[in-house]
């Protein structure tokens, strides 16, 4: 029996968990001798106080939407894809290959091709663990962790030995051609006359991320595949009874998940760096876990959680600039969010259920 009403389940629990994470983060900030309120002030000013700040916040948000959706889709099939990081790295390779291999006449064509490249590479990297899970029963969590390391090594090797232009010491590809440059929000807004920071890296990928949210929502709740994925995620036995192929669901859900994680590369590789560098994903694959958990694997929740983490990342960078608090504070907050919304769910749920039960008894 459900004790909690739906709104409490969907809104109240994540918010309380979030509040707890922030509370402990504040205690950490106090413990290292800083003032959490002024830290928050700096973060808000830095992340939301200017179009420059917004530009960075939304840039990070874009990354986290993609990786958050990736983890969410896998969660719906009860697959825990910790491999978003490796899949995003491979996605970057896909983008780089597409952008470097051809002379693109227009950015839009380059974007379409690069998106496919990113998705195919990312999906491929998720497909192997998925295949091993489906056919050989290898635990997907462990294999995807292993594949993160393997991806890092593969990229390391390729950037050092293959893709690095001659004469360069930097393990990175050459810059993509000007034609593959994606329109930034500054450029798009200037057409309609709205001023927006020129320096901020937010670009058209942000809109693609929003479209991805809508598509994932449609997929999960309005298509047969989504129905099958959710059935499988809730009950493997019921899925078998309904004639849903286990192998098919594990493979397709992980392909979609990996594709989404890989797609992140159109933002960081094509949109921002405009070349492939070492460790391009910068942990965004892991933040996807926090985003998906906090967003309850729903695209709206994922969008909001990604926005929050975008804010934290940009705010954290500003904080490191103006105070002695290192950027790693954000990692701590991220860890606490994962802990409270993911692993310590019952810490909030059990007392809350008791409160609701006693409240209902009074009403009766």
């Amino acid at each position, binding site marked *: 029996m459900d004790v909690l009403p739906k709104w409490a389940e969907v809104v109240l629990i994540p918010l309380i968990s979030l509040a707890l994470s922030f509370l402990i983060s504040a205690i*950490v900030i106090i*413990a*290292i*001798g800083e003032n959490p309120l002024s830290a928050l002030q700096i973060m808000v000013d830095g992340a939301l106080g200017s179009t420059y700040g917004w530009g960075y916040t939304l840039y990070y948000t874009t990354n986290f939407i993609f990786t958050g959706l990736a983890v969410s889709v896998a969660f719906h099939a009860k697959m*825990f894809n*910790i491999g978003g990081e490796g899949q995003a790295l491979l996605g970057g390779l896909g983008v780089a290959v597409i952008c470097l291999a051809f002379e693109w006449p227009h950015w839009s064509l380059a974007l379409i091709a690069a998106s496919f490249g990113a998705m195919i590479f990312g999906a491929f990297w998720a497909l192997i*663990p998925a295949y*091993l899970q489906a056919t*050989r*029963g*290898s*635990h997907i*969590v*462990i*294999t995807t*962790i*292993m*594949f993160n*390391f*393997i991806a890092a*090594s*593969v990229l*390391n*090797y390729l950037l*050092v*030995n293959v893709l690095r232009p001659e004469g360069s010491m930097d393990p990175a590809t050459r810059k993509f051609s000007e034609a593959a440059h994606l329109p930034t929000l500054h450029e798009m807004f200037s057409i309609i006359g709205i001023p927006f920071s020129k320096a901020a890296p937010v670009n058209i990928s942000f809109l693609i991320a929003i479209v991805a949210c809508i598509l994932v929502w449609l997929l999960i709740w309005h298509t047969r595949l989504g129905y099958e994925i959710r059935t499988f995620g809730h009950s493997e036995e019921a899925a078998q009874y309904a004639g849903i192929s286990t192998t098919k669901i594990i493979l397709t859900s992980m392909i979609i998940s990996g594709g989404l994680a890989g797609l992140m590369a159109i933002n960081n590789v094509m949109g921002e760096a405009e070349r492939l560098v070492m460790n391009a994903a910068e942990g965004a694959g*892991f933040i996807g*876990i926090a985003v998906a*958990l906090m967003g309850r694997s729903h695209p709206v929740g994922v969008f909001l959680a990604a926005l929050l983490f975008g804010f934290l990342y940009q705010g954290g960078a500003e904080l490191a600039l103006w105070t*002695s*608090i*290192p950027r*790693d*504070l*954000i*990692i*701590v*907050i*991220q*860890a*606490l969010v*994962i*802990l409270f919304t*993911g*692993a*310590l*769910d*019952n*810490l909030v749920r*059990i007392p809350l259920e008791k409160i609701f039960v006693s409240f209902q008894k009074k009403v009766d």
Partner: protein
Amino acid sequence: MDLLTIIQILDSSIRLATPLIFAALAGLFSERAGIFDIGLEGKMLVSAFLAAAVASTSGSVWVGLLAGVFASLLFSGIHGVASITFRGNQLISGVAINFLAAGMTVLVAQSWFAQGGRTPSLSGASRFDPIILPFANELTRIPLIGPIYSELISGHTILVYIAILAVPSAWWLLFKTTFGLRLRAVGENPEALDTAGVSVIKTRYVAILICGILCGLSGAYLSTGLSAGFVKDMSAGRGYIALAALIFAKWRPWYILTACILFGLLEAISNRYQNIEILEITLPVQFMQTLPYLLTVIILAGFIGKAVPPKAGGQPYTKER
């Protein structure tokens, strides 16, 4: 390749295997009790930091070691509360612990030492010194046995010897004692233990406690034995390699020793050589670094025997209705 080079590589393998042995045994106790632990990495990291930090401030490596174990136990406690008391998802808890460790160590290191997330370099009594075994110097001249004894067997820090002794101890504890019987039972079928009148929760917490101590030793060795001080992210994936070794060893103590030495050897080789040529194929250094992960995937896929984890692993214990 001469004898000395081989001995040097093996010597370095043993040192590199030490943190892996501790951590893999830590994982062994936890997972045999049915608690998945992908947070080995994080616990190593906090222990490495606090051990180095306290060793440098107190000037005593032993105090540092205790501090490191304490830090690791604290994080083990978080994992225990999340996965045993609140029956949360053990994998998610492990992920959280790894990030918490990565962030907190740098944050606190910066706040205490202001050296960009590292501790001051350790020297003298704040580091573990090599132990020269009796007659090590005298025996050097004897061919083969001499160098093996004095270079390979002698001259490690005490933690290396403890790590190697920990393997038979773990085997004995798990398979010969009453406590081990109960621990293995709780990882296979917690209800069997519960209905036999033994507390599932207590047994699991003790397992987690042992896991915390061993991870603490592993981390302390990293910063006070293998290196001289803590640097950001210094565990560098070793927790995951240890996890890989645990799976590779199919959750058995003696196999863990073999797997860890093998993985240590791979690291030693890739530290020493950039590229290795075997049968005219050049193996890049990145390949050697990836090999532990690749081997684990292959083991998990069941291409070399089947790795069957403890049956109740990963599932929180609730009395069924």
